[in-house]
């Protein structure tokens, strides 16, 4: 059914590509062996973004990461948007396509956030159906990413890992394990990050995300971690990452830094740190 399987990303370090880093990245990629782009930023018709992407794709394996497909939405997938993603994947031939276990649209409005889902049989059926459609349209297996969450649904009846595992079993999709999201959600949901990771099916993981978060408080004064992608990866997340790599072996690992961007050497140093963990496990 799928003519491409996502096995082309190297089990080395990559970074989320930002246009601000174009020249510095090309001059000195350092430990960075592959790049990830947000699909929606490259759905224009031309100009500098697409020219840069064409150039980079000649030098680096590219991972296309969608942030707007709303796979968990109650409404049908947006056929036009899916067609645009397909057109992008058709010319770019990326090494990987991934999206989120989340929703972001309602009645035609796009809310630009990764909103949470209750883990129920109804959600499971809907998400699996949408992933089938995406994989059918793109002609490739996709990766589904675990979310950062700030609250829970009283109606949820499954644990998140169990939910993701069942989605993968039904659709044949792979998983994108965001270790920062695991830490953020574990603190926010009062559960153990280690237990979550130890239960996670690492054989299905095609990519790992690492990123920064910051701390806030909820109404009761409890720590609430916010997935900001605007800071270095926390030591705690590095420790969880080493635990994952020790058990599952080297995996393509991405540093996500989307806001308050650092200069290139700072971002490259984060990638180098991930590369050292990967080299240690190889």
């Amino acid at each position: 059914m799928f003519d491409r399987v996502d096995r082309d990303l190297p089990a080395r370090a990559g970074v989320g590509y930002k246009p601000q880093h174009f020249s510095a990245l090309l001059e000195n990629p350092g430990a960075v062996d592959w790049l990830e782009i947000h699909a929606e930023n490259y759905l224009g018709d031309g100009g500098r973004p697409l020219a840069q992407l064409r150039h980079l794709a000649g030098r680096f394996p590219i991972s296309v990461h969608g942030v707007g497909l709303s796979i968990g939405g109650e409404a049908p997938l947006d056929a036009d948007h899916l067609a645009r993603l397909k057109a992008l994947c058709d010319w770019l031939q990326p090494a990987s396509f991934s999206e989120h276990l989340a929703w972001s649209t309602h009645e035609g409005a796009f809310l630009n956030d990764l909103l949470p889902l209750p883990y129920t049989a109804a959600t499971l059926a809907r998400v699996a159906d949408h992933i089938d459609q995406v994989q059918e349209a793109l002609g490739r297996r996709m990766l589904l990413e675990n979310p950062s969450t700030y609250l829970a649904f009283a109606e949820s009846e499954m644990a998140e890992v169990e939910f993701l595992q069942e989605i993968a079993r039904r659709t044949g999709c792979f998983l994108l394990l965001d270790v920062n999201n695991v830490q953020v959600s574990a603190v926010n949901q009062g559960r153990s990050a280690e237990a979550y990771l130890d239960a996670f099916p690492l054989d299905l993981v095609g990519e790992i995300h690492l990123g920064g978060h910051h701390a806030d408080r909820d109404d009761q004064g409890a720590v609430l971690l916010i997935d900001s992608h605007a800071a270095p990866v926390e030591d705690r997340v590095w420790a969880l990452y080493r635990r994952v790599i020790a058990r599952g072996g080297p995996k393509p690992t991405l540093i996500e830094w989307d806001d308050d961007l650092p200069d290139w050497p700072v971002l490259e140093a984060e990638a180098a740190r991930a590369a050292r963990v990967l080299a240690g496990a190889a």
Partner: protein
Amino acid sequence: MMQAGFVAALLDPDLPVPAGLVAPDGAPAGRRFDVYRNTVAGGLTRVLEAGFPALRRLVGADFFAAMAGVFLRAHPPRSRILMLYGADFPGFLQHFPPVAHLPYLPDVARLEQALRDSYHAADHRPADLGAIPPEALLGCRLRLAPSARLLRSAWPVRSIRAAALQGGPSPAWRAEDVLVLRAGFDPEPHLLPPGGGAMLAALIGGATLGAAMDAGGEGCDAAAVLGLLLAQGAVAGVECAE
């Protein structure tokens, strides 16, 4: 859980947090829901700030953020391609009472939107007009680059934008017709000579060059307009009747 209720509360901070959303101990979600509210409003506000920097200078950062908050709730994006979010902003400004005393703001927003549109528009190869004898050219239709945008304003819209971004004296109060062109990757707003706006509007509408020059009127400096198009490589195609 119905996502409709979630969205309504997301966009209206005065609505209560939907039932069934909880903290780990089962308590109502409270401020935890506000994380989503803040992410949605903050993210879209940043998109508008990046897209309308001159507008933001003109009204001030705090006022702009408040105005963006009103706009994004009334006009949430309809597309997932956020780099072009804000096409409804000029129309919104036209009917937003707190800026009624700044009647040129909608056109400044239109110019900034035209620059963004142009930045992401399709690439083109400039047409070679050299092979066409000048007198024959008058009977030809010129197709402009996909990245060309014409804005005709009753206000000195290009000068206002430039003064807002670079400083300098207040511009003289006159109408300005502006042609946004992208020769490489960075669009530039070019001020058109008198009659240039009418001439280009006719050209874009499908008139022949000769007819477009007539549309430009008596004082139209057609040579300057044509010179601008050629210097910027903004003609993407030529169609000449036999």
